[in-house]
């Protein structure tokens, strides 16, 4: 038995001494391999008497199990050490910058249009469109703007070259021609908004030759001036996300509406900072009114039966006011720094239920 005991001690010592997995495997072969020392001893059991074999067999099996267990334990140890070593080698500097990804932007004009559509969509307005190049009838005559009106002079309107018949096409000076085109082709009731590009021959600090407007039009049998107030107050409070912003309707004059009004919203300029809300000061944001009977007539709608209201609003203006953009001209300069700063990330999709603005 001493012999076995010595062998056990010898093998266990060899297992413990194995410095790596290869050495350990060598120890395994030496001990438990086909010609290993324990295996050889097992083979010798055949020549023993049954009693001897029983006792020696048990002792040998115990030795074999013990050595195998020692090998397994050592193997796990060595593997863990090796993994640690590999991981240590694989270390990276995590403070290095990640691979670059560009995030795009939505232009503030598009974003504001989407907001406007979200709000008026809730009130049942559909979106209508019309051409940028217009004729005299749709831009002026049908809107009750007589031929002598100063708005028709070269001063305000961009014209295309005179045609053979002496007429001239023009770039629409407002989105109101879309009212006309809609009324000419749609039977009331009508509820539309029409956002789009508009053009005036004007360029200075506060004017650009191209800008954007949104037109609104309701035609039915019952909508009156009180509804106009209600609709626009709701819009203003929802758009600016200020529930208590004061809204003021001031009598004004437009050829295509009567009664006409200009709409101001309350603001404060305390400390040189403009803030939309109650504050004693006013900012003009849009013009509106009840559609003039002459406009209805020009579109073949009987003004004794139908009525409604229309409004027009500058998109850049309300975007500037809401988002604190100081200069109108910068909207069209395509300056990357401006676009990245004032633009919106594509996932900011305006919705009334999900939030108009992040």
């Amino acid at each position, binding site marked *: 038995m001493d012999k076995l005991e010595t062998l056990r001690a010898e093998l266990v010592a060899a297992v413990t001494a194995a410095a790596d997995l290869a050495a350990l495997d060598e120890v395994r072969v030496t001990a438990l391999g086909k010609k290993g020392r324990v295996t050889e001893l097992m083979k010798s059991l055949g020549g023993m008497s049954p009693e001897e074999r029983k006792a020696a067999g048990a002792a040998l099996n115990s030795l074999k199990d013990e050595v195998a267990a020692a090998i397994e334990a050592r193997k796990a140890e060595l593997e863990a050490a090796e993994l640690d070593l590999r991981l240590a080698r694989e270390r990276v500097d995590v403070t290095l910058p990640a691979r670059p990804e560009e995030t*795009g932007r939505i232009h503030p004009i598009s974003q504001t249009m989407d907001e406007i559509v979200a709000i008026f969509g809730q009130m049942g307005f559909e979106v209508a469109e019309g051409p940028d190049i217009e004729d005299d009838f749709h831009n002026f005559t049908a809107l009750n703007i007589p031929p002598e009106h100063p708005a028709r002079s070269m001063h305000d309107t961009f014209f295309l070259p005179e045609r053979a018949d002496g007429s001239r096409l023009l770039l629409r000076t407002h989105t109101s021609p879309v009212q006309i085109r809609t009324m000419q082709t749609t039977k009331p009731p009508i509820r539309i908004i029409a956002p789009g590009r508009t053009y005036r021959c004007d360029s200075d600090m506060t004017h650009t030759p191209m800008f954007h407007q949104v037109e609104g039009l309701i035609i039915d049998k019952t909508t009156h001036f009180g509804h106009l107030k209600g609709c626009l107050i709701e819009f203003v409070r929802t758009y600016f996300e200020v529930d208590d912003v004061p809204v003021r309707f*001031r009598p004004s004059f437009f050829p295509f509406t009567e009664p006409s009004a200009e709409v101001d919203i309350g603001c404060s300029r305390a400390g040189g900072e403009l803030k939309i809300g109650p504050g004693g000061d006013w900012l003009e944001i849009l013009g509106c009114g*009840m559609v003039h009977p002459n406009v209805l007539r020009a579109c073949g709608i009987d003004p004794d039966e139908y009525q409604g209201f229309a409004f027009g609003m500058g998109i850049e203006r309300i975007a500037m006011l809401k988002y604190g953009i100081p200069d109108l001209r910068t909207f069209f300069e395509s300056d990357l720094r401006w676009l990245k700063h004032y633009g919106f990330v594509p996932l900011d999709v305006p919705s009334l239920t999900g939030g108009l603005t992040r």
Partner: protein
Amino acid sequence: MKFTLSWLKQHLDTEASVDDIGARLTMLGLEVESLEDPAKDLAGFTVAHVVEAVQHPNADRLRVCTVDAGGGDRLQVVCGAPNARAGLKVVLARPGTRIPVTGDVLKKGAIRGVESQGMMCSWRELGLGEDHEGIAELDPALPVGRPLTEVVSFDPVFDVSITPNRADCLGVRGIARDLAASGLGTLKPFEVKPVPARFPSPISVSLNFPREAADACPLFAGRYVRGVKNGESPQWLKDRLVAIGLRPISALVDITNYITYDMARPLHVFDADRLTGNVQARLARPGEKLLALNGKEYVLDETMTVIADDERVEGLAGVIGGEETGCTAETANVFIEAALFDPLRTAATGRKLEILSDARFRFERGVDPAFVVPAMEMATAMILELCGGEPSEPVIAGAAPDWHRVIGLRPQRVTSLGGVDLSTDAITGILTGLGCQVIPGADGTLMVEPPSWRGDLTAEHDLVEEVIRIHGYDNVPVATLPRAPMPRTVLTPTQRRGVAVRRGLAGRGMIETVTWSFTSSAFAPSFGGGKPDLALANPISSDLDVMRPSVLPNLIAAAGRNADRGAKDLALFEVGPQFDGGAEPGQQRQVVGGVRAGRTGPRHWNAPPRAVDAFDAKADALATIAAAGGNPDSLQVAADAPSWYHPGRSGSLKLGNKVVAWFGEVHPRVLKTMDVAGPLAAFEVFLDAIPLPKARPTKARPLLKASPFQPVERDFAFVVDATVPAATLIKAARDADKQLITEVSVFDLFEGPSLGEGRKSLAIAVTLQPTEKTLTDAEIEAVGQKIVAAVGKATGGTLRG
């Protein structure tokens, strides 16, 4: 339109404060643009009396004054004004008072060692004029101790913006009438009494117009006044004119300006001694000249109305008078002109000759047709009062056109259109206050005759506006717009894809911009434009003088501007119109255009960037089409982009023969024309060319058929002629077994001498997706052979050895 409070109060009896009047004007539609109330800043100033003024012990120029501030208060005030002397009534500021001109609050202090308990102010320090010669000297009769604003009147100046329909409010009386109608005071009675004539007029008046121009001047009232003395106007008149920004000239001229602003009634006074013969209104003869009162000479034409004597033109009717017959200090006899001129003709003349005048401004908006003869009488009376003299009999030619009209107003229209319920009495009250005659009709309709000065009131809705305007828009109850219980989809499919494309491209890292619909005629021809019918007749500048034939020139120019600022790498896109067809309305096309410039990103330690190329643009174009709901797999690719693209690095995406998109690198010659550095990859997608998805009866998707068997991938490398399009090879491979082959991708392209001149190797990975059972090696081999055969047939290619 400017006026002062005292001027307003000449027509309006009111106790309302300046601020209340201002607020009401704005809410009447007479928007107050500015309201200067000098008294606003003068709250702390009082009247004081200088009892004693002695030399300052330590300063030659200073005096130490003892000031009686009222109520027994005696203050010691150090003053440097040369006019500070005993006995003077002065304006006193005590410590704590804000000095208007500096905004500083006065503190008690010592000046050169002597305590000063207040300050005596100059007019300039009070913000009232530039007089800084010394301290203000008040009327000696003013009571000591009283607030300055209570004993000295400061006339606030209103500046209101008058909408073009309110010609009547271009006179103070019209404004007063609106205020009175709204309940802010009472309109004072005003009546013009005819001035008795002393002699027949030596000058007669005639209207000489052809029949078709008879409306150019339907009525002319004139009057001769002899023996006038044209001096300075009295102070009250000068004060009013100065307050509203007019320069007092002489009594005769000031009278006409005064009546213009008081009654919205321009008139003219000729120096009668400088007229030759009689006066007539007629059309100008082509080429006739007038030296006008502004010192400029104008050449007239036959569309213009003039006032002439027997010799020449003496005035441009309703626009400006003539220099030759203007009144001077020597003027002794005058001829007054009050006439009616056609608004359109007056406006056209003024526009053509570029003359802006108070007279034109009023005539082109329409003056009161019933206030012609009264205006002449009013002017006569004022001239007699201020300049003396004797009036002749009036000379009148023509007659006022009939302005009387009756408009029916159904009171319920105020409710159904104006949105406010008002009694017939209230409606009648408002309209009467505005000068209308209101007679109740049989069926409850009010028969309304507007006054002569309200030519803008022509129909029932005009009256509804007047009623709710005077009642107050603020007092119209807010009504909620009736609406459907659930909102519907409000965007058309076309509009929805505009939104999707924007957000899709931004999601790809591109930045949306908005550029002008115009571009430069220097660039347009390079992009297929330059048609004369799409040039602007009146461009704002030479670099924005044509409608853009493509979005690209503006985007390329934007890329160039950004590069100049150091931002060379960028990806910009725009969704907007292009004008490449006819000029007629509706011939524009909605386009998505984009450019990528420079490199794909910043330099990075691990992912090095590369120069942008045609495949970036192709990917953008395909992504745009997919975002718009198109099917990128259904498109044919061809290398036939238009001339502004690199001929070897660009292509088109088509559906049949309809071009859906162009993409590629921009032609270097175009970049050179635009002075922008390349390379620059661009695309244009024509949204209208993408078919809208078919409306389906259900939104249910087809059932997912996921195969339980693993897909198998096999690689093939083919050597083909270098001119063989990859797409042909891919299509051939894919079509080799439509059941099993689900994907063919190109993973390598190789060209080299080992393949021979003009040859290339394309390596493809083919994915086979069995649906019924796992494929055996033999089956996979069979598909492989089919692929090799199909590619060989389509391209002449062979497997690379």
